[in-house]
């Protein structure tokens, strides 16, 4: 007589050695094929970024933030720079504002291109993995032409930028967008209309807007539920150029389940995000003004900061990314810096989202939230 598999629970560690679990591990309890309990574990990437920031001066801090998420490096470094600029009272030149915004949007597109590939690979759809990654190379070429490196560019600095656009950078960026726009309809056809992809994602990992707000989700994960929560629109940063552009926050209202989103909706949402970003970049490129890229006194002003507290925020590719900075009088280093990574909340949400799902759907649910371990471990 064989025992019934539904009588006992089996404990499975998903990660840290699993191929998809790069830097994280989740303890799952299964009854048969169903997950009954999920316990996400963090800390495999913990490099004490907040403590490290306390030992670096205000111009050395931003590269630490870039390393938390290399895919959205131009966005990740910005909260720190914004907080320093607020305390130091730095005024950013117009040209720097526009160039910053353009590169932040390019970084956002690059991040989503990587993620299309990542989610497809996790689902075993390997053709879709490599094709967007080919296009991603064009953006990496732009970053390399601009800053000299492909990852962790250290582009912004308090008071302005470290690198200026040249004709060659602009040509490479335009080429990258041209390739993206040519290929994106193909990817949409291949992925979104594929019956296999739809079977794997529709109705999987479904949550309502109300639950998502409780967990603290932000970015595309909540915009897919129909809530237009976007810092670019809600809290326009005076040192960025989103007010120069005419655009709408992309949101998704699914006719069958309004106010809720599943893995498929979040995929569609991220395609729409890319279209918005392309639109913003295209509108900004003709508006790039001439002039300096950095306030000439920025270096001196960022050397020692007055006493103060500031909260730098940006709408990252994965959601609200923010940094709270406290400085003491004549500070050369931060007294306390707290990084808020968007994925800290989306990884936590697995605890509530995964139970009652099938084991095979676990990685789809995880991937559909677009998590990046650096953001929760810091």
């Amino acid at each position, binding site marked *: 007589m064989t025992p019934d598999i539904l009588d006992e629970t089996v404990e499975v560690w998903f990660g840290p050695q699993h191929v998809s679990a790069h830097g994280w591990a989740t303890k799952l309890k299964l009854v048969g094929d169903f997950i009954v309990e999920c316990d996400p574990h963090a800390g495999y990437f913990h490099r004490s970024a907040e403590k490290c920031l306390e030992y670096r001066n205000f111009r050395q801090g931003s590269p630490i933030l870039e390393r938390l998420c290399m895919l959205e490096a131009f966005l990740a470094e910005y909260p720190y720079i914004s907080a320093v600029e607020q305390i130091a009272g730095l005024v950013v030149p117009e040209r720097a504002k526009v160039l910053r915004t353009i590169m932040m949007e390019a970084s956002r597109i690059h991040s989503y291109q990587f993620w299309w590939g990542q989610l497809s690979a996790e689902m075993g759809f390997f053709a879709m993995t490599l094709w967007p990654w080919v296009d991603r190379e064009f953006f990496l070429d732009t970053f390399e032409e601009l800053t000299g490196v492909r990852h962790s560019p250290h582009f912004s600095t308090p008071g302005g930028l470290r690198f200026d656009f040249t004709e060659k950078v602009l040509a490479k960026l335009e080429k990258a967008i041209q390739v993206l726009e040519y290929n994106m309809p193909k990817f949409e056809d291949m992925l979104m209309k594929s019956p296999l992809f739809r079977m794997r994602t529709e109705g999987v990992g479904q949550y309502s807007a109300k639950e998502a*707000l409780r*967990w603290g989700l932000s970015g595309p994960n909540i915009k897919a539920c129909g809530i237009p929560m976007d810092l670019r629109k809600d809290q326009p940063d005076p040192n960025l150029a989103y007010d120069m552009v005419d655009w709408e926050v992309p949101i998704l209202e699914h006719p069958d389940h309004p106010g809720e989103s599943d893995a498929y909706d979040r995929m569609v949402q991220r395609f729409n995000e890319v279209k918005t970003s392309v639109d913003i970049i295209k509108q900004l490129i003709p508006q790039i003004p001439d002039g300096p890229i950095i306030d000439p006194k920025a270096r001196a002003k960022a050397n020692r900061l007055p006493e103060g507290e500031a909260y730098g925020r940006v709408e990252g590719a994965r959601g609200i990314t923010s940094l709270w900075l406290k400085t003491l009088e004549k500070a050369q280093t931060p007294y306390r810096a707290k990084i808020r990574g968007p994925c800290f909340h989306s990884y936590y949400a697995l605890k509530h989202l995964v139970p009652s799902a099938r084991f095979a759907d676990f990685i789809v649910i995880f991937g559909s939230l677009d998590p990046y371990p650096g953001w929760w471990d810091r």
Partner: protein
Amino acid sequence: MDAAGIVRTFTTKFPDIDVKTINEHHIEFTVGKDIIRDVITLVDETFPEVIPESAFGVDLGDDKYQVNYMFWSHKDRMIIQLKVNLEGSNPSLPACCDIFSGLEWHERETHEMFGIMFTGHPDLRPLLLPDELVGKYPMRKSFQTDRSRQAETGLPVRKPRPEGGAKK
């Protein structure tokens, strides 16, 4: 609701909280630890679309600590920051993660990094730290970051640098 309206709502219900309006998108309330749960419940009731954005500790030195809660109300475009000042070497305050479950890990992290006790928290296991640092509270200012584990290596302890730099 604008900033003045929000301030009025909070000060009417809790007359003894300190208010500081930082800018049109950011209000800061300094709250006692005995009413923090009531204030967070009021945040929940006042704003329809609010997310728990962050919660973190600050070591202010001399056994003084501060816990900050950040909420972002998308509809009112307002950051609500709640500051709780604590004292003592083993500070504690009531956990609020049953009101906003997204705060659970933030409180867990603050507990392991600062040694601040959140009473009533369901799960205070260490989140990010390795086993050997548990209970050492590395984000406290008293924690020696450099050479803190030198005793384990067996290397000789380096002498401290002379006061006022090298002799001329």
